[in-house]
């Protein structure tokens, strides 16, 4: 096993312990995730990258409590996850399908708060703050389908932020938006993370994105998935699309993660010798 960076071993807010997931199909079973162990400290921004088909979405669904693990456990704030836990919000890749099209932007953001029985005045405050934070204050009475893809994903982020989660899970949230919107949204998420002190677990297939956003990048092997290696991102906390991406250290880290993902693709696994 790779050594976890200091501070994540004992005091992890989110603990993924030996998670295994086997899909039982008709007559055959597919082992998607073999043995995943990692922790995310309170307030940390961790990214997960892996080759496509590495079971990233499976892992995220297990962590979110949407899918039961075959083995191992996920522990959030000391409690074992058996269903979607209260302190967690998820932003899905398919923004168009995760917003309720029959509700306005405002109603979408407000709904989870209503479910949590947040009083009306506080609800309004939270919704307004969250929509302003993602720059959608003007669009609150629109329906999601009246907005562009990037704006729809902003609504989903606003909904997650208004929910005041302790952990924010993001499943390839920017995979379906264009490059410029993507850069804007990356900075938005970094901003919100710094301002709110929320713990973020960000799944992506984009190596640059993982290095640019995270404090730590967890690289997965190919399926059946294990953790291949964890890379600490020692870039300055202040990230900037131009300055950070042209930083020599960024290039080094990027190259390192890139190499790891290439290794993962070719079937390299930890403990099988250096490739």
């Amino acid at each position, binding site marked *: 096993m790779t050594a976890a960076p200091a501070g994540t071993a004992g005091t992890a807010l989110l603990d993924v312990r030996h998670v295994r997931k086997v899909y039982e199909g008709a007559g055959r079973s597919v082992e998607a995730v073999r043995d995943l162990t990692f922790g995310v400290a309170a307030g940390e921004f961790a990214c997960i990258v892996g080759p496509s088909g590495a079971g990233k979405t499976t892992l995220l669904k297990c962590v979110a409590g*949407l899918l039961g693990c075959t083995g191992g456990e996920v522990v959030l704030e000391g409690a074992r996850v058996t269903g979607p836990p209260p302190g967690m*919000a*998820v932003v*899905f890749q398919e923004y168009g*399908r995760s917003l309720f099209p029959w509700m306005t932007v405002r109603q979408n953001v407000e*709904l989870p708060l209503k*479910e949590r029985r947040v009083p009306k005045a506080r609800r309004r405050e939270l919704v307004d703050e969250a929509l302003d934070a993602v720059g959608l204050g003007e669009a609150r009475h629109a*329906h999601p*389908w009246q907005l562009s893809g990037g704006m729809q994903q902003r609504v989903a982020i606003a909904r997650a932020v208004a929910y005041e989660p302790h952990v924010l899970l993001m499943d390839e949230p920017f995979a379906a938006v264009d490059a410029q919107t993507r850069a804007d949204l990356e900075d938005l998420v970094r901003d919100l993370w710094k301002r709110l002190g929320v713990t973020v677990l960000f799944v992506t297939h984009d190596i640059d994105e993982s290095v640019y956003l995270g404090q730590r990048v967890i690289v997965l092997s190919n399926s059946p998935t294990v953790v291949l290696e964890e890379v600490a991102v020692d870039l300055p906390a202040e990230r900037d699309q131009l300055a950070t991406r042209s930083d020599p250290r960024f290039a080094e880290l990027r190259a390192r993660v890139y190499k790891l993902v290439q290794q993962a693709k070719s079937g390299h696994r930890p403990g099988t010798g250096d490739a």
Partner: protein
Amino acid sequence: MSALGLLRRAALLLAVPALLVAAWWLLTAGSTDFFWPPLSQILGAFDDTWFHGRFTRDVLPSVGRLLAGYLLALVIGVGLGTAIGSVRTLRALLEPVLEFFRAIPPPVLVPILMLFAGIGTGMKILVIVSGCVWPVLLNTVEGVRALDEVLGDTARCYRMRPHSRYVHLVLRGASPQIAAGARQALSIGIILMVISEMFAAGDGVGFTIVQFQRGFAIPQMWTGIILLGLIGVVLSLLFQLVESWALRWYTGLRGSEREG
């Protein structure tokens, strides 16, 4: 421009009905055929036939039974449909039976229903329900099955309570299909309203039309048929009004998807 557009739409909407009425009028103008009286004679009998007592005695009870049966069918169809659509085992268990019952034409049930529901209002409402419930039920099942998985995951993540999940996710999500079923059910309902009144009834539009026919009051019989058509048109317009209001989001969503 918009006034002109409105005029255009009205012209398009009314062109064919106007042509048909004109054709009917002209073709029957000099008719001496007992069974095909001139349209002028039929229209002349309309007011006398329906608006001097029969409206409250026959039309309102008919429409009342239709609405009662229709609404009951909606409630049953949507209630059962959401349950069957949500639970896989229930679906596997019930689907063959549902197809069987759906295939039975409701009119043949009338004599059977009379055996245990009598010949009163209850029987007539039951006949309407027995026909209207199927399109609503089957469309609701399809609608619930087709609910987006990501939306379901979202609802779970944000811990939506069962009741609001049902209202805000299941019902709203399936509403386009429910509306499609409800639209089919409405026309079936009108047919069954008439049929249920032809067997054993003392009032109603269907009953009155049969009475006229048996009494060789042919122009009056024709007015009844026209009245049935008009009831259908009015109910369908009302339905469209409610539908377009409830499915504004759906129309907009589809429009935005078409634009790409």
